[in-house]
Protein backbone atom coordinates (compact mmCIF):
# COMPACT_ATOMS: atom_id res chain seq x y z
CA UNK A 1 0.00 0.00 0.00
CA UNK A 2 2.76 2.39 1.11
CA UNK A 3 4.75 1.43 -2.03
CA UNK A 4 1.78 2.41 -4.17
CA UNK A 5 1.43 5.78 -2.46
CA UNK A 6 5.18 6.45 -2.85
CA UNK A 7 4.96 5.52 -6.53
CA UNK A 8 2.04 7.94 -6.98
CA UNK A 9 4.00 10.66 -5.16
CA UNK A 10 7.09 10.20 -7.34
CA UNK A 11 4.99 10.00 -10.50
CA UNK A 12 3.01 13.12 -9.62
CA UNK A 13 6.01 15.23 -8.66
CA UNK A 14 7.97 13.93 -11.65
CA UNK A 15 5.19 14.88 -14.04
CA UNK A 16 4.91 18.37 -12.55
CA UNK A 17 8.68 18.86 -12.83
CA UNK A 18 8.80 17.48 -16.37
CA UNK A 19 5.96 19.74 -17.54
CA UNK A 20 7.51 22.75 -15.78
CA UNK A 21 10.95 22.08 -17.29
CA UNK A 22 9.57 21.29 -20.76
CA UNK A 23 7.59 24.51 -21.10
CA UNK A 24 9.81 26.96 -19.24
CA UNK A 25 10.71 30.35 -20.74
CA UNK A 26 12.99 29.96 -23.74
CA UNK A 27 14.53 32.27 -26.32
CA UNK A 28 15.01 31.10 -29.88
CA UNK A 29 14.90 32.28 -33.49
CA UNK A 30 11.53 32.37 -35.21
CA UNK A 31 10.59 32.01 -38.87
CA UNK A 32 9.95 35.40 -40.52
CA UNK A 33 7.65 33.62 -42.98
CA UNK A 34 5.53 32.14 -40.20
CA UNK A 35 4.69 35.11 -38.00
CA UNK A 36 2.30 34.13 -35.19
CA UNK A 37 -0.90 36.12 -34.65
CA UNK A 38 -0.89 37.80 -31.24
CA UNK A 39 -3.43 40.57 -31.79
CA UNK A 40 -5.94 42.05 -34.19
CA UNK A 41 -3.43 44.82 -34.96
CA UNK A 42 -1.69 45.12 -38.33
CA UNK A 43 1.21 42.66 -38.22
CA UNK A 44 3.91 41.11 -40.41
CA UNK A 45 1.52 38.43 -41.71
CA UNK A 46 -0.79 41.10 -43.15
CA UNK A 47 2.16 42.98 -44.65
CA UNK A 48 3.35 39.84 -46.45
CA UNK A 49 -0.14 38.94 -47.70
CA UNK A 50 -0.65 42.46 -49.08
CA UNK A 51 2.77 42.59 -50.76
CA UNK A 52 2.19 39.14 -52.29
CA UNK A 53 -1.27 39.94 -53.56
CA UNK A 54 -0.43 43.37 -55.01
CA UNK A 55 2.76 42.20 -56.73
CA UNK A 56 1.07 39.16 -58.27
CA UNK A 57 -1.88 41.22 -59.49
CA UNK A 58 0.27 43.95 -61.06
CA UNK A 59 2.67 41.50 -62.73
CA UNK A 60 -0.18 39.58 -64.40
CA UNK A 61 -2.53 42.42 -65.38
CA UNK A 62 -2.75 42.08 -69.21
CA UNK A 63 -2.17 45.77 -70.22
CA UNK A 64 0.80 45.95 -67.81
CA UNK A 65 2.15 42.64 -69.16
CA UNK A 66 2.03 44.18 -72.64
CA UNK A 67 3.98 47.25 -71.47
CA UNK A 68 6.59 45.30 -69.48
CA UNK A 69 7.17 42.91 -72.42
CA UNK A 70 8.39 45.91 -74.44
CA UNK A 71 10.30 47.90 -71.80
CA UNK A 72 10.99 48.29 -68.07
CA UNK A 73 8.88 51.30 -67.07
CA UNK A 74 10.18 53.69 -64.40
CA UNK A 75 7.94 53.92 -61.32
CA UNK A 76 7.85 56.07 -58.26
CA UNK A 77 6.12 54.93 -55.05
CA UNK A 78 4.18 57.22 -52.75
CA UNK A 79 3.92 56.43 -49.06
CA UNK A 80 0.74 54.49 -48.12
CA UNK A 81 -2.02 56.73 -46.77
CA UNK A 82 -2.75 55.31 -43.31
CA UNK A 83 -6.48 55.75 -42.65
CA UNK A 84 -6.46 53.39 -39.66
CA UNK A 85 -6.36 54.38 -35.99
CA UNK A 86 -3.14 52.41 -35.54
CA UNK A 87 0.42 53.58 -35.84
CA UNK A 88 1.68 51.52 -38.79
CA UNK A 89 5.04 51.77 -40.51
CA UNK A 90 3.42 52.00 -43.94
CA UNK A 91 6.79 52.60 -45.60
CA UNK A 92 7.69 48.96 -44.92
CA UNK A 93 4.60 47.88 -46.91
CA UNK A 94 5.64 49.91 -49.96
CA UNK A 95 9.27 48.84 -49.46
CA UNK A 96 8.19 45.17 -49.67
CA UNK A 97 6.08 45.78 -52.78
CA UNK A 98 8.86 47.80 -54.44
CA UNK A 99 11.49 45.14 -53.66
CA UNK A 100 9.35 42.38 -55.16
CA UNK A 101 8.54 44.39 -58.28
CA UNK A 102 12.22 45.29 -58.73
CA UNK A 103 13.29 41.66 -58.30
CA UNK A 104 10.78 40.59 -60.95
CA UNK A 105 12.97 42.46 -63.45
CA UNK A 106 9.88 44.11 -64.94
CA UNK A 107 10.09 47.59 -63.44
CA UNK A 108 12.63 50.25 -62.45
CA UNK A 109 12.12 52.68 -59.60
CA UNK A 110 13.09 56.20 -58.63
CA UNK A 111 13.92 56.52 -54.92
CA UNK A 112 12.70 59.87 -53.65
CA UNK A 113 13.87 59.16 -50.11
CA UNK A 114 17.55 59.51 -51.15
CA UNK A 115 17.13 62.70 -53.23
CA UNK A 116 18.89 64.80 -50.55
CA UNK A 117 21.99 62.58 -50.55
CA UNK A 118 21.94 62.46 -54.38
CA UNK A 119 21.96 66.27 -54.62
CA UNK A 120 24.81 66.48 -52.07
CA UNK A 121 26.86 63.92 -54.03
CA UNK A 122 26.30 65.59 -57.44
CA UNK A 123 27.24 68.96 -55.92
CA UNK A 124 30.37 67.40 -54.35
CA UNK A 125 31.38 65.85 -57.68
CA UNK A 126 30.94 69.16 -59.50
CA UNK A 127 32.30 71.62 -56.95
CA UNK A 128 35.10 69.97 -54.97
CA UNK A 129 37.42 69.59 -57.93
CA UNK A 130 38.36 65.99 -57.09
CA UNK A 131 36.22 64.24 -59.73
CA UNK A 132 36.95 64.03 -63.47
CA UNK A 133 34.37 66.38 -64.95
CA UNK A 134 33.74 64.18 -68.01
CA UNK A 135 32.54 61.45 -65.57
CA UNK A 136 30.81 63.65 -62.99
CA UNK A 137 27.04 63.30 -62.63
CA UNK A 138 25.11 66.31 -63.88
CA UNK A 139 21.93 67.92 -62.63
CA UNK A 140 18.92 67.40 -64.88
CA UNK A 141 19.98 64.05 -66.33
CA UNK A 142 17.89 61.69 -64.22
CA UNK A 143 15.06 59.77 -65.85
CA UNK A 144 11.51 60.85 -65.13
CA UNK A 145 9.01 58.41 -63.67
CA UNK A 146 6.37 57.18 -66.10
CA UNK A 147 4.00 55.81 -63.46
CA UNK A 148 3.21 56.55 -59.81
CA UNK A 149 2.07 53.86 -57.34
CA UNK A 150 -0.27 55.18 -54.65
CA UNK A 151 -1.97 53.24 -51.87
CA UNK A 152 -4.19 53.55 -48.83
CA UNK A 153 -4.94 51.31 -45.86
CA UNK A 154 -8.25 51.57 -44.04
CA UNK A 155 -9.85 49.61 -41.20
CA UNK A 156 -13.30 48.97 -39.79
CA UNK A 157 -13.59 47.67 -36.24
CA UNK A 158 -16.64 46.02 -34.69
CA UNK A 159 -17.18 44.59 -31.20
CA UNK A 160 -19.80 42.29 -29.76
CA UNK A 161 -20.51 41.07 -26.22
CA UNK A 162 -21.97 37.61 -25.66
CA UNK A 163 -22.75 35.58 -22.57
CA UNK A 164 -20.20 32.88 -23.31
CA UNK A 165 -17.53 35.27 -24.53
CA UNK A 166 -16.32 38.37 -22.74
CA UNK A 167 -15.67 40.13 -26.00
CA UNK A 168 -15.74 39.39 -29.71
CA UNK A 169 -13.82 41.76 -31.92
CA UNK A 170 -13.52 41.94 -35.69
CA UNK A 171 -11.06 44.18 -37.52
CA UNK A 172 -11.46 44.50 -41.28
CA UNK A 173 -8.49 45.84 -43.23
CA UNK A 174 -8.65 47.06 -46.81
CA UNK A 175 -5.51 47.89 -48.75
CA UNK A 176 -6.08 49.69 -52.06
CA UNK A 177 -3.34 50.33 -54.59
CA UNK A 178 -3.41 52.34 -57.83
CA UNK A 179 -0.99 52.75 -60.72
CA UNK A 180 -1.36 56.07 -62.51
CA UNK A 181 0.30 57.12 -65.74
CA UNK A 182 1.97 60.45 -64.91
CA UNK A 183 2.01 61.73 -68.50
CA UNK A 184 -1.59 60.91 -69.44
CA UNK A 185 -3.14 61.00 -65.95
CA UNK A 186 -4.89 57.69 -66.66
CA UNK A 187 -5.31 55.14 -63.90
CA UNK A 188 -3.77 52.04 -65.52
CA UNK A 189 -4.27 49.48 -62.73
CA UNK A 190 -5.90 49.19 -59.33
CA UNK A 191 -6.47 46.35 -56.89
CA UNK A 192 -7.63 45.70 -53.34
CA UNK A 193 -6.72 43.22 -50.67
CA UNK A 194 -9.10 42.57 -47.79
CA UNK A 195 -8.08 40.90 -44.54
CA UNK A 196 -10.26 40.13 -41.52
CA UNK A 197 -8.82 39.45 -38.06
CA UNK A 198 -10.99 38.11 -35.24
CA UNK A 199 -10.53 38.08 -31.50
CA UNK A 200 -12.59 36.06 -29.06
CA UNK A 201 -12.02 36.20 -25.30
CA UNK A 202 -13.74 33.30 -23.55
CA UNK A 203 -15.43 34.12 -20.24
CA UNK A 204 -14.62 30.65 -18.93
CA UNK A 205 -11.50 28.56 -19.43
CA UNK A 206 -8.28 29.97 -20.88
Amino acid at each position, binding site marked *: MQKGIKF*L*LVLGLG*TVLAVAAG*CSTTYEYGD*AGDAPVYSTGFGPGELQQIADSMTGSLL*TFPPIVQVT*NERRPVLVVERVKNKTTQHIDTESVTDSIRTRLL*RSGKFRFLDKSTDGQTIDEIRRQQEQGLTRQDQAAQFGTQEAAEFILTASLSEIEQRKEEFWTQEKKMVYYKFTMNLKNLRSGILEWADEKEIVKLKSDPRFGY
Partner: protein
Amino acid sequence: MKKISVLAAAAALLALPALVLFPGCRSTTSGIEGSSTVMMDADGGYQYSEYVVVNNPKVARGLQISTLSQEFVGDILRAQITLVSKYSKTQQYQYRFSWFDESGVELDAGARHWIPFIMYGNETKTLQGVAPNPSARQFKINIRTR
Protein backbone atom coordinates in the same frame (compact mmCIF):
# COMPACT_ATOMS: atom_id res chain seq x y z
CA MET B 1 1.92 7.46 6.53
CA LYS B 2 -0.98 9.89 6.54
CA LYS B 3 1.37 12.73 5.57
CA ILE B 4 2.71 10.76 2.60
CA SER B 5 -0.83 9.99 1.41
CA VAL B 6 -1.76 13.69 1.54
CA LEU B 7 1.43 14.61 -0.35
CA ALA B 8 0.76 11.93 -2.97
CA ALA B 9 -2.80 13.10 -3.43
CA ALA B 10 -1.62 16.72 -3.74
CA ALA B 11 1.02 15.76 -6.30
CA ALA B 12 -1.49 13.75 -8.33
CA LEU B 13 -3.95 16.66 -8.19
CA LEU B 14 -1.24 19.05 -9.41
CA ALA B 15 -0.14 16.71 -12.17
CA LEU B 16 -3.58 16.22 -13.66
CA PRO B 17 -4.36 19.84 -14.61
CA ALA B 18 -0.75 20.33 -15.67
CA LEU B 19 -1.07 17.47 -18.13
CA VAL B 20 -4.38 18.81 -19.39
CA LEU B 21 -3.18 22.42 -19.67
CA PHE B 22 0.22 21.70 -21.20
CA PRO B 23 -0.15 18.71 -23.49
CA GLY B 24 3.16 19.62 -25.10
CA CYS B 25 5.00 22.60 -26.54
CA ARG B 26 5.36 21.09 -30.04
CA SER B 27 2.66 20.84 -32.71
CA THR B 28 2.56 18.90 -35.98
CA THR B 29 3.65 21.12 -38.86
CA SER B 30 3.66 18.62 -41.73
CA GLY B 31 0.85 18.62 -44.27
CA ILE B 32 0.36 17.93 -47.96
CA GLU B 33 2.49 19.10 -50.87
CA GLY B 34 1.72 19.57 -54.55
CA SER B 35 4.26 20.35 -57.25
CA SER B 36 4.25 21.00 -60.97
CA THR B 37 7.14 21.41 -63.39
CA VAL B 38 6.96 23.01 -66.84
CA MET B 39 9.25 21.53 -69.51
CA MET B 40 9.61 22.70 -73.08
CA ASP B 41 9.49 19.91 -75.65
CA ALA B 42 11.31 19.75 -79.01
CA ASP B 43 8.39 21.43 -80.85
CA GLY B 44 8.48 24.46 -78.54
CA GLY B 45 5.32 23.37 -76.69
CA TYR B 46 5.06 22.86 -72.94
CA GLN B 47 4.84 19.61 -71.02
CA TYR B 48 3.88 19.43 -67.37
CA SER B 49 4.79 16.92 -64.70
CA GLU B 50 2.82 16.99 -61.47
CA TYR B 51 2.86 15.18 -58.16
CA VAL B 52 1.20 15.31 -54.76
CA VAL B 53 2.92 14.13 -51.58
CA VAL B 54 1.03 13.37 -48.37
CA ASN B 55 3.28 13.97 -45.37
CA ASN B 56 0.43 14.09 -42.88
CA PRO B 57 -2.46 11.66 -43.56
CA LYS B 58 -4.67 13.55 -41.08
CA VAL B 59 -4.53 16.68 -43.30
CA ALA B 60 -5.06 14.58 -46.44
CA ARG B 61 -8.18 13.01 -44.92
CA GLY B 62 -9.80 16.45 -44.71
CA LEU B 63 -8.36 18.18 -47.76
CA GLN B 64 -7.70 16.99 -51.28
CA ILE B 65 -5.64 18.65 -54.00
CA SER B 66 -7.97 18.21 -56.95
CA THR B 67 -6.00 19.93 -59.74
CA LEU B 68 -2.65 21.64 -60.21
CA SER B 69 -2.53 23.97 -63.19
CA GLN B 70 -0.26 26.68 -64.50
CA GLU B 71 -0.03 29.16 -67.34
CA PHE B 72 2.38 31.82 -68.56
CA VAL B 73 1.10 35.39 -68.32
CA GLY B 74 3.61 37.07 -70.62
CA ASP B 75 6.72 35.28 -69.38
CA ILE B 76 5.65 35.03 -65.72
CA LEU B 77 4.43 31.65 -64.45
CA ARG B 78 1.08 31.71 -62.66
CA ALA B 79 0.02 28.65 -60.65
CA GLN B 80 -3.43 27.62 -59.57
CA ILE B 81 -4.48 24.72 -57.41
CA THR B 82 -7.99 23.50 -56.70
CA LEU B 83 -8.74 22.14 -53.24
CA VAL B 84 -11.74 20.15 -52.06
CA SER B 85 -12.70 19.97 -48.41
CA LYS B 86 -13.84 16.54 -47.29
CA TYR B 87 -15.05 17.82 -43.92
CA SER B 88 -18.53 19.21 -43.38
CA LYS B 89 -17.23 21.76 -40.85
CA THR B 90 -15.10 24.86 -41.39
CA GLN B 91 -11.36 24.20 -41.22
CA GLN B 92 -8.39 26.58 -41.03
CA TYR B 93 -5.25 25.96 -43.07
CA GLN B 94 -2.12 27.73 -44.27
CA TYR B 95 -0.37 27.50 -47.65
CA ARG B 96 3.01 28.49 -48.97
CA PHE B 97 4.22 28.65 -52.57
CA SER B 98 7.85 28.01 -53.52
CA TRP B 99 9.29 28.67 -56.98
CA PHE B 100 12.20 27.04 -58.78
CA ASP B 101 14.05 27.74 -62.04
CA GLU B 102 14.72 25.10 -64.72
CA SER B 103 17.83 23.90 -62.87
CA GLY B 104 15.76 23.34 -59.72
CA VAL B 105 17.28 26.29 -57.85
CA GLU B 106 14.77 27.96 -55.55
CA LEU B 107 13.94 31.59 -56.35
CA ASP B 108 13.88 34.14 -53.51
CA ALA B 109 14.26 31.32 -50.99
CA GLY B 110 14.16 33.62 -47.97
CA ALA B 111 10.95 35.34 -49.02
CA ARG B 112 8.57 32.40 -48.64
CA HIS B 113 5.80 32.78 -46.10
CA TRP B 114 2.66 31.02 -44.90
CA ILE B 115 -0.71 32.50 -45.84
CA PRO B 116 -3.83 31.53 -43.86
CA PHE B 117 -7.03 30.44 -45.57
CA ILE B 118 -10.39 29.00 -44.57
CA MET B 119 -12.17 26.02 -46.11
CA TYR B 120 -15.90 25.89 -45.42
CA GLY B 121 -17.70 22.55 -45.22
CA ASN B 122 -17.24 20.48 -48.40
CA GLU B 123 -16.16 23.59 -50.27
CA THR B 124 -14.10 23.68 -53.46
CA LYS B 125 -11.57 26.50 -53.51
CA THR B 126 -8.79 27.70 -55.79
CA LEU B 127 -5.52 29.24 -54.62
CA GLN B 128 -3.31 31.23 -56.94
CA GLY B 129 0.34 32.17 -56.84
CA VAL B 130 2.51 34.26 -59.16
CA ALA B 131 6.19 33.50 -59.69
CA PRO B 132 8.61 36.18 -58.47
CA ASN B 133 10.34 36.49 -61.87
CA PRO B 134 10.34 35.04 -65.42
CA SER B 135 12.92 32.32 -64.69
CA ALA B 136 10.41 30.18 -62.71
CA ARG B 137 9.65 26.80 -64.30
CA GLN B 138 8.47 24.83 -61.29
CA PHE B 139 6.25 25.55 -58.32
CA LYS B 140 5.53 23.74 -55.09
CA ILE B 141 2.69 24.38 -52.69
CA ASN B 142 2.71 23.21 -49.07
CA ILE B 143 -0.51 23.09 -47.09
CA ARG B 144 -0.81 22.48 -43.35
CA THR B 145 -3.36 23.01 -40.61
CA ARG B 146 -3.29 26.22 -38.63
